[in-house]
């Protein structure tokens, strides 16, 4: 391992452990690491934004594609939001951004996320006992959870609708449970990734240093309590 790589790995390990020190309590090491991260992330973002303007805008204008001046003007207009008097100018640029973004998404949204999902829920209940159970759960779950959001109160069907809505609520709760489980899985993956890094060479050299610092913090807190 070359020297710059060695130093960068040790810095990364130190910053990781400084962030994890929050698990004990709020402290200056955590704040230093947090502020370093925010600063670097902002700097990286700005540098990449400038690179993008150069690559996608300025270079094309230099090549004779003068209509690329228009999005650059819109970009400059966004900065007017920092003035109270001319903040309204930025709204036009924002309106174009939101309009284009929504238009691009919506053009295939109905087919991709509504029609195809309804089609996928139109399934046969025949094909063996397991297929019957699987597909019945999908069909009943889909209908009940969909009808849970049916808010019109019709007295003639109030009672059956209340039962359907109840089943729908359980289906939704199962779904949220699955989503929560997935979120925990994701967070554990991120933690496992960091642990894997911390236990690799040369990052593990920072662990004893961190344990000493943590021990000092615990000792200081105990003394303070006394």
């Amino acid at each position, binding site marked *: 391992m070359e020297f710059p790589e060695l130093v960068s790995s040790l810095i990364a390990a130190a910053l990781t452990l400084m962030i994890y020190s929050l698990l004990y309590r709020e402290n200056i090491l955590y704040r230093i690491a947090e502020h370093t991260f925010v600063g670097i992330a902002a700097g990286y973002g700005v540098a990449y934004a400038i690179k993008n303007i150069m690559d996608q805008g300025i270079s094309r204008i230099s090549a004779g594609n003068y209509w690329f001046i228009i999005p650059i003007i819109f970009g400059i207009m966004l900065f007017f939001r920092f003035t109270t008097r001319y903040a309204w100018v930025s709204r036009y640029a924002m309106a174009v951004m939101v309009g284009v973004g929504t238009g691009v*998404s919506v053009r295939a949204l109905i087919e991709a996320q509504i029609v195809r999902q309804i089609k996928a829920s139109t399934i046969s209940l025949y094909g063996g006992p397991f297929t019957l159970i699987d597909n019945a759960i999908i069909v009943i779950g889909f209908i009940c959870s969909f009808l849970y959001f049916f808010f019109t109160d019709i007295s003639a069907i109030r009672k059956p609708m209340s039962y359907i809505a109840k089943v729908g609520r359980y289906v939704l709760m199962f779904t949220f449970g699955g989503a929560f489980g997935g979120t925990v899985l994701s967070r554990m993956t991120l933690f496992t990734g960091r642990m894997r890094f911390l236990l690799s060479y040369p990052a593990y050299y920072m662990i004893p240093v961190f344990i000493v610092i943590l021990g000092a913090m615990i000792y200081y807190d105990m003394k303070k309590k006394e």
Partner: protein
Amino acid sequence: MEGEVMVKELDPRLMYLLLFIVVGAPLIRPLGLPLPITEPVLALYNKIESLPPGSIVLFEYGVGAASWPEHGPSNIAVLKHLLSKDVKLILISLYTAEGPTLFATRIKPAIESYLEKKTYGVDYVDFGYITGYETAMAAIAENVHKALSVDVYGTPVEKIPLMKNVKSAEDIDLVVATAYCEPYIRQFYTPYGVPVAIMTWGMNAPGYMPYIDAGQLCGMLAGIRGAAEYETLIGSPGEGISSADALSLSHLLVIALVIIGNIQYILTKERSGR
């Protein structure tokens, strides 16, 4: 509740310590727990295996530093598989500006031996980070040459041999993307019928299953678990397999804490009721 320790009253720091031990121990000494291959992972493997020689694959490596453990190993595993086949790769980052940095520092060294056998510009090309996300996708799908004017080295797209016959999404045979699948389904699958596969976070997997069932996704790798399964399929162990045991044990710990917490909650409720 004398003599009993309530999970809900337990100092969270003890749980964190327990988690450090449970995750750290199998990383030092792997247990080799069984790892069954799930259908969405197998589907992507089979899809890549069935690609005819010379197929064009758009590979989006939008891996961020924070999401590396979730997306990084998946990206490496799928790229290894793609590079071992006779397919042409268009590399791009749409999800995050961090993609090119992570690609250069983490992904490229891991696939170096595969890249050595390929020729840049003929077998693969890298366009780096393109801003705009879904609007950029729409532009690429409609007119590749207009949306991607130069590659990361500043070579005009017209001068790249691989790109000569790639004019729009209709010329692309497969899209393998990182992070969210919906924009790719909207911009590539629905209007042009290009098969889309996704390498996503573990937490997104339940929400993306309907897209698999509807045939809108041709495969999915969810988090490090998906990467571990893919590494098993291609026979190239990496970060995924080495982290699988730690991940499984951490899940068991969470499940155990949830069960103990619920039992104690019910017992407390019963006792206070009496």
